[in-house]
């Protein structure tokens, strides 16, 4: 009886809170994109399988009320890590959600609060890891020719007090056994993803 009551109470509270899976209605959807120079892959110091480095050309995406889409475009075809092929994609998409280099795992000038591990689980799912909560969520990735795409639910990205619709982004990609990573975007620092500035009302 007590358990049933608690369950009902929890369900009512959850419904009342709306689940928190979407952004505030005031925040608008927006796209972002930044390019990475062609032919800027790093020279390998360790590459036992002579794996060619995938040249990352464009990082783009969309931030909307339900999810954040990250789209990577390469100079050559990429495949799943679990395919064990020479062009299998490796690496991370790093998110600094609070744009504070002092919190999270230090990567360059970012304090990485969450990341997508580009190695898939053998079924086309990649892991989204929230370093703060330790939660790991499996998300479907899409490898299509020279592109890779993943959609991260907003509930995974913006949580708690951090709900400002902004984050910093760094993409590190590599190949199987190849060290160091083949290509990063941007090459230095990070990219700041934020809504476009609202034009001043005359």
């Amino acid at each position: 009886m007590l358990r049933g009551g608690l369950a009902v109470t929890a369900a009512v509270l959850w419904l009342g809170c709306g689940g928190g899976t979407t952004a505030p209605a005031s925040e608008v959807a927006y796209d972002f994109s930044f390019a990475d120079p062609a032919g800027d892959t790093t020279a390998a110091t360790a590459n036992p399988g002579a794996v060619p480095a995938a040249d990352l050309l464009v990082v783009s995406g969309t931030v909307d009320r339900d999810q954040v889409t990250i789209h990577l475009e390469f100079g050559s075809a990429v495949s799943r890590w679990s395919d064990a092929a020479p062009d299998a994609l490796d690496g991370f998409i790093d998110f600094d959600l609070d744009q504070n280099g002092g919190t999270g795992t230090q990567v360059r000038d970012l304090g990485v609060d969450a990341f997508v591990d580009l190695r898939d689980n053998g079924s086309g799912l990649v892991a989204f890891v929230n370093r703060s909560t330790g939660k790991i969520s499996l998300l479907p990735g899409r490898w299509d020719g020279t592109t890779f795409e993943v959609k991260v639910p907003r509930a995974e990205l913006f949580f708690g007090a951090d709900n400002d619709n902004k984050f910093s982004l760094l993409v590190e990609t590599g190949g199987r056994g190849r060290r160091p990573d083949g290509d990063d975007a941007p090459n230095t620092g990070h990219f700041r993803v934020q809504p476009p500035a609202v034009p001043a009302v005359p």
Partner: protein
Amino acid sequence: MRALAAALLLCALIGRPAAGQRPDSTRADSLRADSTRADTAATDYSALFLKTYEEGRTRVPVFPRLGRPALLPALSRLVFDRDSIEWHNAETVSDLLSKVPGVFVWRGGWIGRPEPINYQGRTTASADFLVDGMPLRALGPDSLGLDPSLLPLSFFDRVEVERLPGQLRVHLFSRRHDRLPPRTRVGVASGDLQIARYLGSLEKRSAGGFGYVVAGEYLASPLRTGDQGAFHNTQTWLQASYVPAGPVQAMVQLFRGGPRREPVLTTGADGSITSASDTLIQGLAGKRSDFMATVVYQRNRDGTGLRAALLAGASSWREDSTALALSSPDRHVRYLDQSVTQLGGTLSARSRTSSFEGQVWYRTRWTPMEVRASAASTPFGALAAGIEAVYQRHDGGRTSRWLTGRAGLVLPFGIRATALVRTGSWVATPARYDAEAVASTDLGALAAIGGARASAEVGYWRTGGFRPEAYATYRTIDTVGASGPTKWLTVSARLAPKQWLVLDGWYSNPVGVKPEGQAPTHSIVNATIQSKFLPTFRSGIFVLKLQGSMETWGTGVLGRDRVGAAVPLKGATFFRAQIQFKIGDFVAYYDRVNLQASRLGYLPDLPLLRLASTFGVRWEFSN
């Protein structure tokens, strides 16, 4: 408890009328009150005992043991049957494998801690395990190497270890009940830190050929408050078989285990865990299941003639807490939920002096195809020789192919000599996608002399260069350094100057450069007194065994930490004692390790519990 006592008292009162309420003893129909009731009189326990005894003398056919080579030269195989397993002071399969010269167990402490084995520097590739002919794959947090301590030793009644240079092939055979009366086995053990082990099994066969097994084993090492690494594991085994007098036999069985081990972290000077604590032993929480189905066609019961078998297996590991977990500092996620399905077919022919076997396997991952072909012959009693060819195709277009050759001679005066060679190129850890095939030629030569009272064996081995994998469970040992070609010397001996006194042991040492991960100058020596007290117990039903063991090794290097610094292995010596007595099929034992209360361990920062003891009983009987 009080409520139970009250209830029992109430039942007793209800069931027994008070004296004043008793009916007249001179009832008209006094027959109904006769204490010698008809059904009681019909139970003739003597007849029942004699019937069971006679049935127990009759053997019924059992399912054949698959997977092991039919003919092998002397010295190339070690066999532990049920009596040997019971008689050794082995708590786990790892313990049992430590009887093989050259095996160094990476013990994370005492019972309940990981016990992966290292044989001749091959770490996770040291051994292949097969259960009733079905290869057992490492799954879960460490998909490169299987921890033998997680295997339920009480479910097996025979373990055969093929010795090859740089590799062991361990055949585990589940219990075979060959009598009609049901066989029951129960065991209870306890010890320091409130450890508990319970085991029980019921095996039944019918005259029509049907049989079943239900068995369980529970081990818990709860530890004291504040200690780390508490462990418990419940393992079950269900088997159904059909072994009629005809040539077609079938067996299905399911092994399930649910190990749960808390992680072990480094502590500060005051023994506390801080945010800077490092993980010494990775935690473990999941369920492993192994389903096997086998159909065999075999006309001759003695193993000769043609035999064909179809095997199907499905193994899986399911993580309890989450489907995946964060791994090493490279930030990558390891996907721990794993499963593999295997389908195999074997065809073999065996005569008194020769054998042939072909195997084909399909697997859903890592090694999708495997083909094995072997032939062996013993043209005359003194000579035995055999060859095996293996081809494997792995994920990622990788392949392994190698030849194994064995030849042995049995000479007068108890002299035996055997040569072993394994040559080719193979992927040692197919589960690692970046592991490539490496060409190697491994050699071994064994010579032995003696018989039951005194025997000695010398082995000289040469293993090729190897890049071993570290054990994933030990997080502070990040890598184990590559080794070049290595020569190994192993010596074992057994001396029984009196029937009641046995001295035995082995010694192993790499000659020249010492590979990382393997203890140098490693030896285990046992002194055993066993007596049947025949003047008192003339039937021979009673056996007493007192055994003292010493294990020692020299200083070496276990591996490398995250920054590449050597992790030293301190030289250590441990003493162990066991007292065991046996009355028929009842066994009671007391086992104590680390008798000299050493603060050292097999691995740094993971000391062996001082003066740790276990005691227990096992009883096996026919119902």
